[in-house]
């Protein structure tokens, strides 16, 4: 019986090793990068992550994450899954998840997001609207009336 158990375990470990062998995952949407020497005018719509280090005017849209580099300047409305800003955005931002404005970030426009984090030294002028959190309305903290 021990022999059968050992052979089964060795088969399983072999299968595990094969499963974790590194492969290029082409199903993951590729990254779009706008370099520092590039000026883009128009609608930039991508399926994967977007990284901007240049100048973009028009519209930027992705379902994944958008990173605005320190040398970047976006004069456009932005829509993304999550947005991280270290450069300049002049326009409205709509983030389905997290919006982060880093210390060198400069945002002028309205923000709609689920969560926001603004570092000390960041610049933000506009209105911020948070999406309502989905929950059952009950909180774990007991109310003062209930204690008495």
């Amino acid at each position: 019986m021990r022999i059968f158990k050992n052979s089964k375990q060795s088969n399983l470990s072999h299968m595990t090793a094969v499963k974790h062998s590194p492969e290029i995952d082409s199903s993951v949407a590729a990254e779009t990068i706008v370099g520092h020497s590039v000026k883009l005018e128009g609608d930039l719509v991508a399926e994967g992550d977007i990284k901007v280090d240049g100048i973009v005017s028009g519209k930027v849209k992705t379902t994944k994450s958008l990173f605005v580099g320190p040398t970047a300047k976006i004069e456009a409305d932005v829509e993304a899954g999550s947005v991280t800003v270290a450069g300049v955005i002049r326009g409205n931002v709509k983030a389905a998840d997290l919006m982060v404005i880093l210390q060198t970030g400069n945002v002028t426009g309205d923000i709609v997001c689920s969560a926001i984090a603004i570092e000390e030294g960041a610049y933000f002028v506009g209105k911020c609207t948070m999406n309502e959190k989905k929950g059952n309305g009950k909180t774990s903290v007991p109310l003062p009336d209930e204690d008495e």
Partner: protein
Amino acid sequence: MYYYLIDPKSYDGKNFEFEQSRLLSLLNEYQVAGEAARVTPIRGVKDLVATAVSHGVKTLVVVGGDETFSRALSVFHGKPITVGFIPLNSKSEIAKILGMPQTLDACVAAIAKRLVNSFDIVRVSDAFFISSLSFESPEKECHLFIDESFKIHAKVLGGKIINAQEAAGRSANIFSDPGDGRLEVILAGKLSWFSAWRYRRKFTAKQFEALPGRSVLHAKSLRILAPEGMPLYMGEYLIARTPASISVMDEKLRIVVGKNRVF
């Protein structure tokens, strides 16, 4: 029925006649023999491919270089033909992409094995290619119009438009799937003196995707509007000049591949 189009000009060895006779005997040995036609000054690549198509050939094997393949592609694209490729020189990028071995024996064995994949065909002006295009514009601003959706104005050192690329020239985080219907557009931005010296070998080898400050965009079609007259190269072969329209065609190419293919 197999049809072999043989281009002796692409051969970079010493004795082409010996190589050709060896090829024909290997085809018999692997039972994939068929009609063989040699490219001459009188009957060029396009004439021979048109003849093959008119004869109802089902499998056309191009025996030559990347330029031979590109010229043949302009005739047989869209036709119900399975294509094969046997490289006659060591510099062929298409051979490396398709995983075709360097030795003649192994190439014929791969053709006989008949492992077929679908490939995107890319049209640039009046020419066609399946690998990649490159250009250099160190002093001038490039204007591109991508997917009829946005314009790019950039002062770049050079750029590449990739459908498929050999493994050696590929950066780890840029994977070009030749069957996804999209092109990768790489633009190499200006570098500082130190970076230019540090990455000089990669720039000389046109590995723009490995340079810092590069741009990576994805497109189904694009137009290179400026600078005018800029040459577009497929490897070392001048394929077109700007202004040029580049787009992925709707029809796919059925092509025989080797086991060492990069996709």
